[in-house]
């Protein structure tokens, strides 16, 4: 049989098997659960929004998974079942175009440079210049793309890249390296630098000349396990006042 059909069959077999295993664990049927795959940087905000959604919609349950957008996109391509996908850039959203409905932008964020609290730098450029080891995300990670674009706008990329410690697979990986003190500087979203890390890092805003912004998009799956729930949650995310308030409270800008 042609390779494609064989591949499809094998994929179907594996998905069947995995779903069967997954299904064993699920207590209630999929009709009342909304499954959300969201970029790592949305961890706290989507978690809070999900809680608000459950409060507003009795009987509904929201399940979330957070990882670098490229990881989630790859999972979707390989057959992961989901109701809503929230990506940190359009690149990864485009990758899964065949599996999602039209994406809707719902938030943006600035980029910042962070350093361990012990730094002697006075501004972002100084922090990057003085850093021996810089934490960056891999180029396919949205945070990595944005970081490169931003630093190129500042003319600092060529100097910074060779000092890369490691290419992380998510923006939170970058954050961890700086929080642990393993990196002298890193580029993350402003929304990642909330109160939980207040004492351990210092945040430096990028100069106004930097126009790069992170654009967060959400899209429902084209074959979701819970179509009604998918649409409901997306609507909630994009239009509901409390959802918007939560996003802003975490530092996102809403359109």
């Amino acid at each position: 049989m042609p390779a494609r059909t064989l591949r499809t069959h094998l994929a179907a077999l594996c998905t069947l098997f995995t779903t069967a295993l997954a299904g064993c664990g699920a207590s209630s049927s999929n009709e009342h659960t909304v499954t959300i795959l969201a970029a790592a940087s949305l961890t706290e905000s989507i978690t809070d929004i999900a809680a608000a959604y459950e409060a507003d919609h009795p009987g509904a349950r929201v399940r979330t998974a957070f990882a670098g957008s490229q990881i989630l996109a790859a999972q979707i391509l390989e057959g992961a079942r989901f109701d809503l996908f929230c990506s940190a850039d359009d690149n990864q959203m485009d990758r899964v175009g065949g599996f999602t409905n039209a994406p809707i932008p719902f938030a943006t964020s600035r980029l910042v440079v962070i350093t361990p609290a012990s730094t002697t730098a006075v501004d972002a450029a100084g922090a990057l210049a003085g850093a021996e080891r810089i934490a960056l995300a891999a180029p396919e990670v949205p945070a990595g793309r944005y970081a490169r674009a931003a630093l190129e706008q500042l003319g600092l990329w060529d100097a910074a890249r060779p000092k890369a410690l490691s290419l992380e697979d998510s923006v939170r990986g970058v954050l961890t390296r700086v929080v642990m003190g393993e990196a002298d500087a890193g580029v993350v979203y402003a929304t990642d630098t909330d109160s939980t890390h207040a004492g351990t890092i210092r945040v430096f805003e990028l100069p106004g000349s930097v126009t790069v912004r992170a654009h967060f998009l959400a899209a429902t799956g084209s074959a979701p396990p819970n179509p009604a729930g998918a649409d409901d949650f997306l609507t909630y995310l994009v239009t509901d006042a409390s959802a918007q308030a939560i996003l802003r409270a975490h530092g996102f800008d809403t359109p």
Partner: protein
Amino acid sequence: MTNTGKGEGAAPIILPIIAITGLSLFLLPLAGLALRTRWSTAFEQLRDPAILEALRLSFIVSVTAVAIALCYGFPMAYLLARTNLPFRRLIRGLALLPMVLPPIVGGIALLSAFGRNGILGPALESIGIHLPYTTAGAILAVTFVSAPFMVATLEAGLRDLDERLESAAATLGAPRWTIIRRVVLPQLAPAIGAGIALTFARALGEFGATIAFAGSLPGRTQTLPLAIYQSLHTNLESAFLLSVLLLVVSLTILIALRARIVPGNNQRNDRT
């Protein structure tokens, strides 16, 4: 001979059924791997400098790890198998601990010891030794998880030997080191070979400790498994190709080891 029922004569039919079912669970993924790889573009893909870099790095890191494991593993195995050191059980447990430790835990443990804010990290940095996020760090992470395999294999090999031969050598006047060099090591050659193969296989496949302690930077710390992880999210074709590559290497090692992994196939020395 008639099959008189359960337990007598031929094995019950349920056994082959279980075996085939279980085996297909393991074989299907491997078959899928071979089938999904785009063989037509394989050679071009393999010429990609990023892939060659990962191959080169994996090779250097694994071979170095095996060498270190040998230098550390033999004295350790000898200590455990041939001396009356106190707390031997405890020492053996500690030496073999990385074998059962989840690799990512190993990586985090290494960070807590050698990281910038770790126990020894600052001291090492002050004398110019940088371990985390360097190739040396990758080697350390890989050695940490794979060296126990060397210790275990060599200790088992030593215990298999007839210690009386070493007594005989002693009565002939050979000092301890000569006994090791001329009597023990030549007999230990098969175990050393098996230890090298197992350690190398483990080293080559190491992921969790490496990514936690050494990070993933192409050319410096991104070994094959880490490269596969990254391409899994970006370039699936590449991921399949590299996976098949690692699979072939693993199979080769397994074939080389077949004589020792299956119990009873062990070739004992002829004793006269």
